[in-house]
């Protein structure tokens, strides 16, 4: 693999200085771990960890009809967003395949921030812009990804760290809300969102301020035992919660209903891209479903693309799998043919030619005690 082809976030030098192991991810060279995935995972479950999410994209839609237009492009209902509120949503193609999963925030009455996956920035922007030309209303769309850096600060002690960073004058935004704060000279968007299942915030600010903000977060978090965390822990944390990973669990060949994420699709909206297909699927029944499971007893960790067997017959394949650091057994998610097995039903995972027993679970796979 060539490093030259991969983009670097504004925190690249910080990662190298901290001894991170760097890997290509979605066109970016990103830290997969600094010390150990296990340790970083536990830091987030027990205290607090910080992730560089500067590779993620920031698209901004502005105009009096921005909400109306976005509502035709995204599955969730933007009309439900007051200023300062955000929602998880999907960008679909005409066949209801998932182009991207993202969070859209209403940062002003007529201004929306879309935080999108790193590998999909160009596709999302191109798709949205192509659909802008045919819709009336003069909505302005900008790709501001290069101007923004971002950090995810996640863990049960995030509230303490928030106060150390931003003071106690203005409270941390509530779940799924976003507000502007100042850190010294830097203006920062703080959103109460995350991808770990823990309390946490995701913050976005000017790219040139990234090293300063990163160092301040690590310095102030020292007393809490903060850890810089890489993509390895990000993946185990999100999979324990059954949060989907774009490019693995989600792709243009899958739709949100199959992925079990119909909650973020508002079929009562009269019109949005992919709606007809989803409505039809809902009426006629899905052909497959994303199902969480855990291994029973000792087995190698399940991994993406392993086959799943049900009553001896091939029933589908894993899109995610790992050893759960919190639970200490293998966990995963697989698309299985319908009628999908119910929680408690036994399935088998084929690993290097041998079948290992697993059991279908409810999500999330990890529940906070």
């Amino acid at each position, binding site marked *: 693999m060539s490093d030259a082809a991969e983009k670097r976030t504004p925190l690249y030098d910080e990662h190298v200085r901290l001894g991170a*192991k760097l890997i290509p991810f979605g066109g970016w060279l990103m830290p*997969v*771990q600094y010390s*150990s*995935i*296990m340790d970083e995972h536990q830091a987030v479950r027990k205290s607090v960890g910080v992730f560089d999410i500067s590779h993620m994209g920031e698209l901004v839609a502005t105009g009096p009809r921005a909400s109306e237009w976005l509502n035709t492009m995204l599955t969730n209902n933007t009309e439900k967003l007051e200023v300062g509120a955000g929602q998880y949503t999907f960008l679909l193609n005409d066949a209801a395949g998932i182009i991207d999963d993202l969070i859209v925030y209403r940062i002003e009455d007529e201004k929306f921030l879309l935080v999108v996956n790193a590998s999909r920035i160009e596709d999302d922007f191109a798709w949205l812009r192509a659909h802008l030309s045919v819709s009336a209303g003069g909505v302005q769309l900008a790709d501001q990804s290069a101007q923004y850096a971002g950090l995810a600060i996640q863990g049960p002690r995030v509230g303490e760290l928030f106060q150390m960073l931003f003071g106690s004058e203005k409270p941390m935004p509530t779940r799924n809300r976003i507000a502007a704060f100042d850190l010294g000279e830097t203006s920062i968007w703080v959103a109460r969102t995350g991808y770990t299942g823990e309390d946490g915030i995701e913050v976005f600010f000017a790219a040139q301020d990234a090293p300063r903000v990163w160092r301040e977060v690590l310095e102030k978090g020292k007393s809490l035992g903060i850890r810089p965390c890489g993509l*390895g822990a990000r993946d*185990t944390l999100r999979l324990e919660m059954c949060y989907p990973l774009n490019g693995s669990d989600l792709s243009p060949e899958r739709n949100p209903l199959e992925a079990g994420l119909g909650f973020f699709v508002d079929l009562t909206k009269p019109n949005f891209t992919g709606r007809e297909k989803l409505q039809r699927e809902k009426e006629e029944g899905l052909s497959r479903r994303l199902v969480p499971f855990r291994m029973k007893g*000792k*087995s*190698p*960790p399940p*991994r993406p693309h392993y086959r799943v067997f049900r009553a001896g017959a091939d029933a589908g394949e894993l899109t995610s799998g*790992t*050893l759960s*650091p919190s639970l200490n057994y293998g966990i995963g998610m697989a698309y299985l043919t319908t009628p999908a097995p119910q929680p408690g039903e036994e399935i088998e995972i084929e690993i*290097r030619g041998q079948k290992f027993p697993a059991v279908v679970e409810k999500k999330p796979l990890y529940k906070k005690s």
Partner: protein
Amino acid sequence: MNVPDDLLYTESHEWVRREGDKIRVGITDHAQAELTDVVYVELPKMGASYEAGGTIAVVESVKAASDIYAPAKGTVLEVNKALESNPALINTDPYGEGWIYVLKVDDTEQLKALKDAAAYRSSIG
């Protein structure tokens, strides 16, 4: 990185300790540091024969499964059962408690192709 002088090494980061016509095999300190967090070890089959360069075991970290290759043709005499309940021994003591298996080598001449400590040290920079 710890690279003991009294061991032989493969290109694929296994270490080899000669014990007469038998060899004890594990993965190097460098390899365990690259893998980190070993969470599962698939041990060779007792009594089974393997070709030189054939996949004989699998070491899995949280992120990935890595094949372990037989450094010479031979038959498995011992496997380290302790790794079944405590695979992290590979991380904490790669040259000691973290050994993986013992192989009876058919032709010890094959071991001449392995690197000495100095050569292995320079290969991992």
